[in-house]
Structure formats: C-alpha cells, structure tokens
C-alpha cells in the first residue's frame, strides 16, 4: 500500500479552541477514506488541513506534521499543493460562467493551453464526473441553469480538470436529493481507481456505502480508524458504536 498523505501528531488551534488533538492518520493511495463524526468534531478542520485552506482563518495555529508523499505540505508551494489536492465543497459552487468555462477555469489558471486541448480536457473531465451526457449539447449555457446535483458534479469535473492526485469531498451531498446523491456516490467510487479520495460526511450510511476505510472523530480526537466493513459491524470503541447506531450526534 502506498501512503499518500501521512499525518502525524497533528494539533490545530483556532485562537484558544483546540480543534484537533494529536491526530495521526495515513491516507492510502486509491482508497476512499470516509470521515464521520458529529458537528464540531474536527472532521472538516482535518480536511481543510490537507489543502491548507485553514491558513485563511485568523488565529490558526498547528503543530505536528502533514506529509504528501514524504514531503511536508508546508514546504510545498500553496498553489501547487491545491492543484494536486483538489476539493469539492458542501454546497455546489459554480462560478458565474458557462458550463464549459467553469470546467476550463482552473486549467486556464495554471497554464495556457490551445483551444483543442482545452476542449478535450473539459470533455474528459465531464465524462469522469458522469455529467457529459446531460450537458454536451449546452456547454455554453450558464452553469446556474443546472440542477443542484448537476452543479455538484460540475464542481467535481472542475476539480478533475486540473488533474489532482487527491480529491477532498466536504459533505458533497448534504444539499442533494437521494437520486443526485446516488449519482455523486457512483462517480466517487469510479474515481478512486485514479485518485485518492477523502470524504467528510454527516451521513453515516454514505460512509458505509462508499468508504474503504472509515475514521470516526469526536471532539477533535480520532477515536477509531478501520476498514469500513469492520467498523460498521464490530467497532472497537463504545462511542463509535453509539454514533453509528444514531444514539448521539
């Protein structure tokens, strides 16, 4: 197993709030690692650490180490890191541009490509995100005309277009109906052949459906991390069991 991200003894504070405590996780290549836990358990903070979005917050402090393929992410140029580690947010967030330009946006930003190559990249990315069939005849329409589920898959395509190695999903289905959710989940499962995926979700069942391994966070601590099958049938910790069964959180 190749370790993509290696996180050791990570502590994060926002001001006086200790958001993550001594967390150590290895994210394996080509797996879907689901992260579950109640609100304020630090799961989103953990995710936003991996592409350094936490740095935007005032009073952010950390210690410990986060390594992407043996290299400390603080030594990697931020823009390059975020190109390698893409992110899909909770709310679909198309830019006020056409469908085509939304997908091409990130590519254009990193380097100029000629029209033909750009077109190919956009098409390939939309196919990978299972959106191509639905939008191929209206690429020049505004992205806001798409439905919520389509917008979310557009955001996935946009992330894929810059050829990341890891994709972070931050509750990608929280605003979607069950059918759109199923489509996004399908896309994720197919994507793991090429990419490494870290998925933060509030939906325990979603973690059970798509995750290879699952991590349970509570109050900033990593309580348990194991194969999804095992976690959902025989969790080691009582708190994990309680959360999965819906007893709290």
């Amino acid at each position: 197993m190749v370790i993509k991200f290696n996180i050791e003894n990570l502590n994060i504070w926002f001001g006086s709030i200790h958001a993550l405590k001594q967390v150590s996780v290895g994210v394996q290549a080509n797996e879907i690692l689901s992260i579950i836990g109640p609100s304020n358990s630090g799961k989103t903070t953990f995710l936003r650490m991996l592409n350094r979005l936490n740095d935007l917050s005032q009073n952010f402090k950390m210690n410990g180490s986060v390594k992407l393929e043996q290299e400390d992410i603080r030594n990697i140029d931020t823009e390059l890191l975020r190109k390698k580690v893409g992110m899909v947010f909770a709310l679909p967030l198309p830019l006020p541009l056409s469908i085509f330009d939304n997908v091409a946006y990130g590519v254009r930003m990193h380097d100029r490509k000629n029209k033909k190559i750009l077109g190919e990249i956009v098409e390939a990315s939309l196919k990978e995100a299972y959106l191509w069939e639905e939008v191929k005849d209206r690429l020049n329409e505004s992205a806001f005309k798409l439905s919520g589920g389509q917008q979310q898959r557009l955001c996935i395509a946009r992330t894929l277009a810059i050829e990341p190695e890891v994709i972070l999903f931050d509750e990608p289905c929280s605003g979607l109906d069950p059918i759109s959710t199923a489509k996004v989940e399908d896309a994720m499962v197919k994507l793991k052949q090429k990419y490494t995926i870290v998925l933060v979700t509030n939906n325990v069942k979603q973690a059970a459906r798509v995750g290879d391994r699952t991590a349970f966070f509570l109050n900033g601590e990593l309580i348990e991390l194991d194969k999804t099958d095992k976690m959902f049938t025989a969790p080691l910790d009582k708190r994990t069991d309680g959360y999965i069964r819906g007893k709290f959180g």
Partner: protein
Amino acid sequence: MRKLKELIIEKVILICGLASIFFVVLIFLFLLKEGLAVFKIVSPFKFLFGKSWYPISEPPQLGILPLVLGSLLVTVGAVIISIPIGVGCAIYIAEIAPLKIKEALKTGIELLTAIPSVVLGFIGMVTLVPLAKNIFHIPTGLTALSGSIMLAFMAMPTIVSIAEDALYSVPKTYKEGALALGATHWQAIWRVMLPAASSGILAAVMLGIGRVIGETMAVMMITGNAAVIPSSILAPVRTLTATIAAEMGEAVVGSEHYFALFAIGIVLFVISFAINVTADLFLHKRQ
C-alpha cells in the same frame, strides 16, 4: 381611547411621510416654473449647445455648453483618478489588510467624508494650485486638473466604503472555491471576487460620480471659473454648479439671467437624477 391614540399617531406619521414627497414635488415644480421660462428667450437647443455664456451682455448670450463641458471635464478627471485608487483601497481593506490596519483605514476614510468641502477647497487652493502652476509651467494653477484631483478626494470615501461592502458581502465560499482550485490570492480576487461584486462596485462608482457632479464650493475655489470651452485639462473651467453659486446673488429676479440659472438647475437635477437611478439599478441587481 387606545384606538384613538393609534389613529392619531398613524395620521401624524402619514403626514410626515407625505411632507417629504410634498417638498420634493414643490421644489421640482418651482425649479421647472422658473427654469423653463428661459426657453421663451432662447431655444432649448441654443441653450444647451450655445458656445458662449455672457448672461449680462446686451442682448444676453445664454449658451451653457462651456459650463457643461467644464463640469464634464472635471468630473471625468475626478472619476479617472478616484476609481482605481478607491477600488484598490476597497480591495486592500476587504481582502488584504490585517484587522488593525483595516479598522484604522476605515476610520480614516470616514474622517475624510467629514471634512467640509470648503476646507478641502481652501487646502487645494494653497497647496495644489501653486504646485500645478510650477509643474506644468502654466500661467495659473486654477485648472480643471486641480479641481479633478480635489474632487477625487471627495468621491473616494463613497467609492471605498460602498465597494468594500460589496466585496465583503461576496460569499466566502466563492473565494475558497477559487483558492481550492489552486488560484493565487490575486487570481481569486480578480477573476472571482471582483466579478461577483461588480454591480456593487459600479453602484459605488455611480454614487461617487453623483457626489462629484453636485459639488460646488471646492470646484468654485480652484478651477478658475472661466466660462469658456476648455482647450485642455490644464485650462481654467467653470462648472454648472459654480455658475449658479457665483451668479445667483447678482442676477435680477425675473431677468433672463435669473431664469437661465434656474434652467441650469434643471440640467443638474436631470444629471444627478439619472446617475442616482443608475446606481440604484446596479444596487438592486446585487440583491
């Protein structure tokens, strides 16, 4: 008893509300009545596009083109100076400045609004005017350019504070979305934040222009007040507002000159009204 009290209060508030409309209408009607009278003497076309303004010669020549051009030149100059600085300042405050500097800058800009225009005019007169004269080697520093620079200072607070509001109200997620795709901070500002805030920024600019075009005191003091068609930005000009302020005291009530000044008032009113409506349209588009 309580019902009666309610009723009285309701009526009083109603009257207050109506009063403001009533006064506006009254002022507008008065302006129209006094101003439109001038068109018995000169045609509207000759009034708007006449090249000379000699209101007290015999017969009077009442062409306001030089004044309109004067106003336009000063305003355009002020806008060209104040937009880049104002929007740049707004971006700095909204996006880049650390909290402490942000607070200091905002207070400073509010203070800038509090300076009376006559004081600004006075300061401009003793600093800017001699400076312009020496730099450009021109006979007088009382030029359209001096006026533009001074007015740019007056438009800046409006532009900065409204544009900063517009930038601040762009959802954080937009910026994070762009950054997560690997955009640099500037790329995120330029390609995402600014377009998303564009209607608010345009409204800010329009309101800034509105402030500039209606300003009287400072321009009167430092633009030289020559009612001729300006040959360049380094020539003295006279604006519409300054003309009214300077000449109304001497105009004989009921004379052609008097009516002409009111007609200038109408022109100004129409311009400000148009600008305010445009700004409003942009602001509402945002919401």
